[in-house]
Each structure stands twice: as C-alpha cells, then as structure tokens.
C-alpha cells in the first residue's frame, strides 16, 4: 500500500502534504470539532439529566390528591398542591388581564403607528425591560401596593407578573404584525375601510397565530416566576381566591418545600416541579410547532 501512496504523491499535487504545518492544521480542526461537540454534549446532557431527575423524583408523588388537597401541616403525609395550582392560575390570569392589552397595543403602536426616533426610543425601552430581573418588579408592586395596603395580595403579584409580560407580548406582536404584507393593508384601505378597522379586522387577524404564540409564551414565562411573588403574593397554605389577600403559587410552594426539613414536603416539591416543567415543555413544543420551528433552516 505504501508504495502506491508514495508514487501517487510524487506525481499527485492534490495529496495532503506531509508537513508539520499540515499536521497542525488537521489537528486544530479535529480539536475544534471535538471541543465543540463536547460543549454541545454538556449542554444537552445537563438538561436531560435535570429533566429525568425531576421526573424520577416527582412522578411517584403525582396523584389525584396533589391536585385536590392543600398542604398538610408539619409535613404529614397526604395533602397536595391544589391551592398553589389554583393560585398560579389566578395570578397568571390576572397578569394576562394587565399585561396582554398593554403589551399588544404597544406592539401595535410599534408596528403600525410608530415612526422616527420616538418609536425607536420606545422599542429600545421595551427591549431593555426584558433584561430587568423580575424581583425588581416585585419590589415595585411591594412598595406600590403591598405596603400601602398593609397586606400581601394576589393583586400585587398579578401586577408584578403583568409587567413582566408586557415586553414579551409587545415584541412578539410587533414582529408578527410587521410580517403582514403591506398589500393587505393597502387593499383594505382601498376598499374604503378606516385605518382602525384595517388594523382591527384585517391586520391583527392575519397575525393572529403569532400574537397568540407570543401571549402563550409570556404566560408560560410568568407561570414559572417566583422572585416577584415573594413579596407580593407571598404564599399561603390555604385556598384563597381573594386577590386582596396573600395567595399561593406553584413556584412559591416549590421554593418553600425545597428547603423543608420534611421529606414528604420535599417529595411534593419535586412533584410540583414536574407539573411545572411538563407545562412549560408542552408549551414550548406547541409554540415551536405552531411557528413551524421544526422545519429545517440550513
């Protein structure tokens, strides 16, 4: 074999040269491939390990009681997270009431009306808002609502979560609204519709899927938030649907139980985490599927 190869390289300039430089090039290339593969494997492994761990630790404790009972005192067995789940639903609902209109219309403004430096400024501010740690909004609601009322409340929690939703809804709405072809708007106007009618009855319906996606994304985001609820909704071991009173939420309960000395509560923390993760995973999949994110890109 070696003689054939040698003969070839004598006459064949396209054979890889046997120089040190060349060996180094090949080596660098392989090292990079290996290293980047390792990095990816790390990221993927961590996620899968985390998910499987929560699954394994939480699944045994998923039962009907989890969804119907409230926590037992002192970590006695039995009990569930029903009030936390109910609280989360109420809080996310409240947040949506607050955050969706504000976010959506900001998106409409940025896409349909905004021009020039003011719009750029607004967009910039909204973008910056996404980077603010959520506990800050908790602080805001704490000072603004909790302290004057002298009481923790679901309302304060809902407001804090709502503010978090605003930039998410605004930016995703703006993007999908922008994608609606100009021709559609022009056709509507040419038919004599007013601008407001065009936006409400033509443009928004055309972008409906994207807008809903953005809203669902925002809702899933805030459903997992804990920090802003610490000093607003505060948490409660009982059912409570009165928004002027402290209210529990699933992430709050998980936080509480994770550091508990009682194994039963730790188990329920895992169970609650599993519920939360499954919810988020399903939402992520649904969003991906709805936006065609599973199609090949490159």
């Amino acid at each position: 074999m070696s003689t054939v190869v040698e003969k070839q390289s004598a006459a064949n300039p396209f054979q890889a040269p046997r120089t040190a430089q060349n060996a180094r090039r090949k080596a660098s290339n392989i090292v990079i491939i290996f290293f980047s593969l390792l990095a990816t494997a790390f990221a993927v492994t961590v996620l899968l390990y985390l998910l499987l761990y929560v699954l394994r630790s939480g699944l045994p404790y998923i039962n009907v009681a989890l969804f119907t009972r409230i926590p037992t005192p002192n970590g006695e067995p039995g009990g569930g997270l029903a009030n936390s789940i109910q609280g989360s639903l109420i809080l996310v609902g409240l947040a949506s009431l607050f955050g969706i209109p504000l976010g959506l219309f900001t998106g409409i403004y940025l896409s349909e009306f905004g021009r020039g430096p003011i719009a750029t400024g607004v967009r910039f501010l909204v973008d910056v808002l996404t980077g603010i740690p959520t506990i800050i909004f908790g602080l805001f609601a704490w000072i603004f609502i909790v302290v004057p009322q002298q009481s923790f409340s679901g309302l304060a929690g809902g407001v804090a979560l709502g503010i978090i939703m605003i930039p998410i809804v605004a930016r995703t709405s703006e993007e999908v609204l922008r994608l609606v072809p100009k021709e559609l708007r022009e056709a509507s106007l040419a038919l004599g519709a007013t601008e407001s009618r065009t936006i409400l009855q033509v443009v928004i319906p055309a972008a409906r899927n994207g807008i809903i996606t953005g809203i669902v994304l925002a809702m899933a985001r805030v459903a997992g938030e804990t920090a802003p609820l610490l000093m607003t909704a505060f948490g409660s071991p009982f059912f409570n649907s009165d928004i002027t009173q402290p209210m529990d939420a699933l992430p709050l309960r998980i936080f509480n139980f994770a550091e508990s000395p009682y194994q039963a509560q730790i188990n329920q923390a895992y169970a609650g985490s599993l519920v939360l993760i499954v919810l988020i995973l399903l939402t992520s999949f649904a969003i991906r599927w709805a936006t065609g994110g599973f199609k090949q890109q490159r």
Partner: protein
Amino acid sequence: MSIQVENLNVWYGRSQALYNVNLIFEPLSVTAIIGPSGCGKSTFVRCLNRMHEEVPGASVAGEVRIDGVNIYARSIQPMYVRRHIGMVFQRSNPLPNRSIWENVAIGPRINGLAGGAALKEIVERSLKQAALWDEIKDRLSESASQLSGGQQQRLCIARALAIEPKIILMDEPCSALDPISTFQVEELIKQLKSAYTVIVVTHNMQQAGRVADNTVFFLQGKLIEKNKTEKFFSHPEKKETEDYITGRFS
C-alpha cells in the same frame, strides 16, 4: 495544467444540473464559458475546484482529471484541490475586517507556503500581477473595504494568485464592475494566460470574444459546443449555438 472532464453529472439534491459533460481545457489558455442564466456554467466551474459540494444536498458523478489525477478520487480531500486552484467570485469578497496586505497574505499563510520576508515577497508579487500594486502600495495596512469595487475585485484576484495556483477560475468576475474596471480586469486576464490556465464564466459574449482563446457554450445543463473563439462566433457548428449568439434567446 491540463484539465480533463469526463462524464460529469451534477445534482442539487434531486434535480440534475449538469448532464454528461465531457471537456478538455488546454494548459495556459483562456477559456470562456457562456450560456443563458441557469444553464449550469457556474455549477460547472464550481465542480472544478470541488466548491459545489459545499451546497447542502449536492452530489457529483464522473471524473475531473487535472494533470491526470482525478480530483474526485476517494483519497483526495477537497481542501487540497482548492489549494491549487484560484477562484474569483462574481461579487468581490475581500475579508472586510482585514487589511489589504492581510487579505492577500491569508492564503499562503494558512497553507503554510511562506512566512516572514518570503511572504512579503509573495504579497507584493501577487498585487503586481493583479495590476493593483501601484495604486495601493502605500496603503497596504488600510482596511480592504476602503477600496473601490474594481480595486476589490483585483484584490481578490491577487488573493487567488498568492497561493500560486496553476488554474484560475473566474465566475462572472466583471458583472458587478463599471466599464473601466471591467477593462482593467479583462486586460489582466489576457496577461494571466501566460502563466495560468484561466477559465472565465461570462454572460457577456463580447467579453468572451475579447479575452478568450476558446469558448464553450452550455445550455440547460448540457455542453453544446466548444471551439476556438474566432471560429465559435463566426462559424458556430450547432444550431443552438447560433441561436444564442445571434440573440434569439438571452
């Protein structure tokens, strides 16, 4: 270097782009490849330095023999084929964040061809060969994006020359250039043939007439005719060729 193409068939995924191309290029000549848009001339040229396979889903069957060696042989890596073949693209693509000097030096540098003083010599020589040296010899450390369109294209030619190829492929090198730059590049092509085998893809038949020794005509993925330029344009053998050069279809 002589190039011999044998039974070349090329696909983009499922759709075939070139059908059974057989062609020989004489060394130290300029060959122009003409044909309407989509006829496969760019694809063909990209097969000569194995750039075509960078497109996802692309595949090639057949042989391309350069100086007797089939560059599509299993034992040969595309990298080392491209190292010996210079390519100039339709839109000039100098590396924007690098200086003029570095743009030319990068080829020899990566391939370990020279360093230090020898590298400086190569850069200067390549820039002179590309007829760019006088214009920029005082500005070598300036960013390449400061140059005009025509200068950038000549820079790309210098970059291709720096790796000391034997073959130079040019894919519509003048289509984005103004008339003066076009003229300069065409003059350059005529000079290059004394040392290189040059293949120029062009949609401009007059350009083919000006610079090329031989002309090749592709239509819908098939090689229709190849001939010495003068004869090609004055006495085309095939009807399709005649229809094309008389402008019956663009």
